[in-house]
């Protein structure tokens, strides 16, 4: 279940509670994102959301002919910062539910909470912790984002288990579901981690200035768009 929670799996009260948490959390992120990005927020965040959506369609081989796809929560957080990243992923989740019928409408709060709040923020915290332990190089940033992305996938499955324990309707014990979910997600986490690390490393190679999580490495003026100063254009 590296995917959306459907209607009916978690009972109504829990879903509604998650909805309140999700709405509050995304509201806070929007305010923070607005402070960080001002009026450029709309096109930049919109394009980042479109990127996350497209990246989720990139299949990668797992093993023996099966393939997985990227979830992208930590990728977004490392690239554009946790607040903007969370908003971008929330937009993706809402659009998928309403425009593509992907993920239940009544479970929208749960899905936003898991994918747009728990994953990016949990992962970003882990990323910051790892980054602090490693030498300040681009390789460290890529490696930290990969490990954090893998960790965040497991964290999301843990969040699901908690939600299931509170309001699950499945008829299996939360422990059983939890063990199975986390077991499956450890495998998915490896793929997510490898792809996230490689993707971050690719961005660092061409536009290091665009990687939020690598700001501590200092400004980079080597790329033409940064040189044009368009980023600060008014």
């Amino acid at each position, binding site marked *: 279940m590296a995917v959306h929670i459907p209607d009916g799996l978690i009972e109504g009260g829990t879903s509604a509670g998650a909805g309140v948490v999700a709405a509050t959390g995304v509201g806070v992120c929007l305010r923070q994102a607005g402070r960080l990005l001002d009026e450029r927020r709309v*096109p930049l965040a919109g394009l980042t959301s479109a990127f996350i959506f497209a990246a989720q369609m990139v299949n990668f081989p797992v093993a023996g002919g099966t393939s997985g796809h990227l979830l992208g929560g930590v990728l977004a957080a490392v690239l554009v910062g946790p607040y903007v990243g969370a908003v971008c992923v929330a937009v993706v989740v809402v659009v998928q539910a309403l425009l593509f019928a992907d993920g239940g409408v009544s479970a929208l709060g749960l899905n936003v909470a898991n994918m747009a709040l728990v994953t990016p923020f949990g992962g970003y915290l882990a990323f910051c912790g790892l980054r602090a332990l490693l030498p300040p190089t681009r390789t460290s940033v890529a490696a930290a984002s990969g490990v954090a992305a893998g960790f965040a996938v497991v964290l999301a499955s843990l969040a699901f288990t908690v939600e299931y324990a509170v309001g699950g309707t499945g008829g299996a014990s939360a422990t059983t579901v939890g063990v199975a979910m986390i077991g499956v997600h450890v495998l998915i986490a490896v793929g997510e981690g490898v792809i996230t690390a490689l993707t971050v490393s690719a961005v660092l190679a061409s536009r290091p200035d665009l990687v939020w999580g690598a700001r501590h490495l200092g400004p980079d*003026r*080597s790329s033409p768009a*940064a*040189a*044009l*100063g368009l980023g600060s*254009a*008014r």
Partner: protein
Amino acid sequence: MTGAAVEIRGLCFAYPDGRPALQAVDLDVGAGERVAVLGPNGAGKTTLVLHLNGILSPQAGSVRVGGLVVAPATQAEVRRRVGIVFQDPDDQLFMPTVADDVAFGPANLGVEGEALDQRVVAALDVVGMAGHQARAPHHLSFGQRRRVAVATVLSMEPDVLVLDEPTSNLDPAARRELADVLATLSLTTLVVTHDLPYALELCPRSVILDDGRIVADGPTADLLADRDLLAQHRLELPRGFHPSWR
């Protein structure tokens, strides 16, 4: 309006890394004139364009539009007067429908209701896209998107129209349709391009920008007939083309 529609004096601009992008550019464009700004990629053409409506601010020198100095204080009025059509129509069409996009500029100027609708209809009419209001940009052909991009600027009723590489990626038919539209406009127009035959077709006068300087200014046919001048500035006519052959 009298006198020069655009007056650029000693305009200098350097990139943050210190490389000069524009070096003491002087350029006057008369009201109603149609001028091509020719130059190879990297000559500073786009940087010049971004100064015309104050997106970039001069580090030295000045830009005036219809007598008004381009500066932060005059920004809103300057952006009404100077309409820029960017190279990639997908960058310019960012709203869900054609009508919303064409209305975006005038709505920012405070136009609303009936008057706004009229502007949208009139602008789409000029570019031959009347009746496409409700369509989404991604349902249009590339050539249609380019013409709608022109309409998004015309709806602001600008005094000066600036087109950045208007023919890039257009096939011959779309190229012709756009030229036909532009030829009917009586606006002051700057066409920034490396498409020399198009410049000859549309603009009686051209300037050549290379390495951030204006290196030539004269009738387009004369400039294009000077093969040495063109070659010096990494420009050349396609083989088989001759500027006097009409």
